[in-house]
């Protein structure tokens, strides 16, 4: 539409907020606030919100699609960002009392940040995720949270270092022979791949072996702390961070890599920024490392898979840490894969619905969000839905199965692994 198209293209060309994947069209004279502060610190800014409802829609893109799983399921304003902002203002101003209902509303959210991405009020856009998290800490401090399911897995993490009610001793039961000695790369497996999505862990190990990279695993890996941190159970996270950091440093690797988006965010962002736990090694998501290995020729995904695929951006990897392109480039490196983007992708990606304690405490929300994503993936005509996080993969796969969808849900490492394995086996046949 002539000038309109040109102007909108300029509007959309924003800049990333450093340290996040959230993109803001910068605004003059926005307030600079501190991050990781208690809820009360943000009181004034909470009330800047006019509850205008922009947080319910993609702004100026993707046909103004809806973005908030929590709000779209429950419908009441309280479940959208605007409602939460003003609810928190009401609580902090003494206009409302802290109650278990307030706690339920505040926990009924995956903290995916899509709403935050869409709000153009700079102070909310920049900092809302800070207070949404601080609110959970406040709820815990007031004895109204976390939700019972969160408390249960929190206690288990303290005891057995994983949130899946599994024995710590079984963490590496999926692994045949543990790599010996030290490596250039340390694979931080994460709880979901260790106990639930074993195929992801196996694919990663297989790929690392195929690449010839010398790699190792932690001698004693504990939960990264992500499920506790995002449910406001922050008291134990520092201990987990320090333990894992010690274990990582023991490996003397140059790179720590993880296949879990949640672990990645913890190691990369939360450990240093919140707990001052700086790692001496580079932290990479597996998609970043594998892309590097493919480009260097250490991995050659040569077998044509002939799949139409679509890609789901995990929130921890995309909006929260800014890794959007490495997974896509990795998909592009696999012969025969045709990537068909979903309408809501990258910074506008609809959340899978699993994170921040939702899958355990709000099963209906987790299932609703994932089934909505499956429906969107199906619209692309893709046969395979790829993602880059075992927790997303698990929730999306369950939803696909429940819906009787023909779409197959896989982790990106599994697709690459098929391609490599196939090419090797083909090579051996020739």
């Amino acid at each position, binding site marked *: *539409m*002539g*000038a*309109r198209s*040109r*102007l*909108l293209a*300029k*509007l959309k060309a*924003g800049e990333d907020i450093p340290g996040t994947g959230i993109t803001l*069209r*910068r*605004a*003059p*004279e*926005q*307030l600079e606030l501190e991050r990781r502060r208690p809820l009360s610190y943000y009181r*004034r800014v909470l*009330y*800047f*919100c*006019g*509850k*205008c*409802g*922009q*947080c*319910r*829609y993609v*702004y*100026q893109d993707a*046909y*103004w*699609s809806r973005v908030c799983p929590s709000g779209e399921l*429950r*419908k*009441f*304003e*309280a479940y959208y960002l*605007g*409602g939460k902002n*003003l*609810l928190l203002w*009401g609580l902090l101003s003494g*206009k*409302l*009392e802290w*109650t278990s*209902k*307030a706690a339920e*509303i505040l926990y009924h959210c995956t903290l995916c940040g899509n709403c935050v991405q869409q*709000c*153009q*009020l*700079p102070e909310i856009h920049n900092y809302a995720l800070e207070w949404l998290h601080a609110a959970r800490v406040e709820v815990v401090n007031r004895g109204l949270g976390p939700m019972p399911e969160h408390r249960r897995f929190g206690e288990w993490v303290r005891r057995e270092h994983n949130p899946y009610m599994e024995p710590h001793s079984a963490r590496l039961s999926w692994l045949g022979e543990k790599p010996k000695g030290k490596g250039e790369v340390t694979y931080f497996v994460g709880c979901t791949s260790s106990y639930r999505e074993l195929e992801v862990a196996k694919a990663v190990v297989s790929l690392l072996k195929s690449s010839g990279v010398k790699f190792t695993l932690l001698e004693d890996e504990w939960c990264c702390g992500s499920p506790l941190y995002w449910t406001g159970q922050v008291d134990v996270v520092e201990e987990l961070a320090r333990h894992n950091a010690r274990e990582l440093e023991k490996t003397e690797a140059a790179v720590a890599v993880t296949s879990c988006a949640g672990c990645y965010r913890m190691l990369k962002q939360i450990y240093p920024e919140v707990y001052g736990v700086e790692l001496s090694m580079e932290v990479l998501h597996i998609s970043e490392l594998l892309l590097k290995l493919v480009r260097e020729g250490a991995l050659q995904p040569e077998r044509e898979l002939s799949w139409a695929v679509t890609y789901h951006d995990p929130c921890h990897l995309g909006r929260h840490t800014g890794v959007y392109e490495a997974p896509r480039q990795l998909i592009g490196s696999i012969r025969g894969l045709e990537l068909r983007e979903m309408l809501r992708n990258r910074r506008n990606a609809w959340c899978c619905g699993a994170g921040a304690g939702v899958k355990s405490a709000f099963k209906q929300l987790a299932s609703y969000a994932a089934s909505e994503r499956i429906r969107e993936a199906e619209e692309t005509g893709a046969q395979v839905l790829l993602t880059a996080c075992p927790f997303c993969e698990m929730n999306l796969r369950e939803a696909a199965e429940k819906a009787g969808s023909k779409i197959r849900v896989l982790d990106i490492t599994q697709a690459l692994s098929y391609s490599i394995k196939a090419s090797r086996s083909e090579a051996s046949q020739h």
Partner: protein
Amino acid sequence: MWLEVRRELERVVGSEYVSSDPEVTFLYHWDFVTAEEPGVCDIVVMPGSTREVQEVVRLANKWRIPVVPWVSGVNIGGLATPRRGGIVVDLRRMNRILEVNEDDMYAVVEGGTTWGDLKGHLERHHPDLRPGVPWAPAGAGVVPCYLCYGFTDLSFMAGTGADFLNGLEVVLPTGEVVRTGSCMCTSYWHSRAPLPDLTGLFVGWDGATGIVTKAGVKLWPNLPTEYLILLADTVRDGVEAFKRVARKCTGILDMCFVNYTWLMSLLGYHEKEEDPLDPEEAGVQDFYGLIAVAASSEREMEAKKEAIEEAAGTGVLADLEAVMELFPEEARPQGYALVNPPIHFYNCWNYSYGGGGEWVGCYLSSRHVASYYRIAVSVAKKYGRHAQMYGRVMSGGHHWIARVNISFNKDDPSDIEAARRCLMEIDEKVRQLPSVVRYKAPSWAKERNFSRASPDSLELIKRVRRLLDPNGVMNPGHGL
């Protein structure tokens, strides 16, 4: 009683769509921009169909409790605030676009449809058509905007939102369902003519005469559009230039302007002491007009632009992109967004850091726009406030909109009070201009609006309302 009411409402819409939890109802008490006095929402219900709305209204009559229609509650005058408590009927589940008739260029939408819903649907499925959209956020409602004479980016061409309505489906305050316009007697929603215009019973009544569950809304061809900026030293000079353009040029979709202060707030700057309270007096260029012009071909566009330039006379004309280049990079995006509403105009309400703002907005003759502005600036100056002015030429120039916004910190009672005094004085003084009629007026301005109306006219309004709502349940405290 409320327990019983709740049970009955749950039976109608399902328990998941009824709430009387304070954490939920709290969000319906306020208009969270104007800081107008809060009301009380005793219970909120979200119906999913016209039949459910009917049931809810019948229950309200049975219990003789107020029923308040609601979509997003952001219409800036506290118009959706439940003034006498009762049941808030939140229509957000009724947000479907039921039909788009490409031949006759209209859409049939449900009463809870938002700008995001409608714009998104058309962009995706009917890109050759477009609605008229206000400078409102995506979450605001289409139908309430049109019912309240909202104005849009097509208002120069096509008038107020009310002119965009082809017909309505309404649940009356007594629970019956009526249809107005062509949909009353055909399956088409193409016009209000040539029937008795019952639509008027629901337009401009502030939701006090029924709950609109469906509306036929006009759409227009989505033609290539160019955006020109007309700059003038003063609002008076700019208004005269706009009048010349309006008389001589065709193909214009929209003509609107802001003053220096609104421009600054729009672009993301905040109020500072050194900013002039009277930009014109300080010698700052004070008129920034936007002209949107559509054409089917480049040749046609060039001819139209040439005609506009000639008609503008002394006004300086430039294209929007070029003007935006004059501003720092971080200030441009809001300018770019102007061309594709809905828009998140965050800074109009946050100019003084605090998220509060309220306006004195009027429909008026072009003769009084400049005087209106001078009055507003002089009063605001007396209070040490910056007057943000915005205006629009409506219906090909047959009348205008003028609006002055005063920002404040809504978390500071003394600031709210000071801003309110300023707004009230502006309201009182601009009302002396002979053509001024307030629109979307908050409760304190409502009665004043009718101070010069004839008693017979007022009595007719009251009689109509009593006829439609004998039990007085529909949105009491709003309307006249």
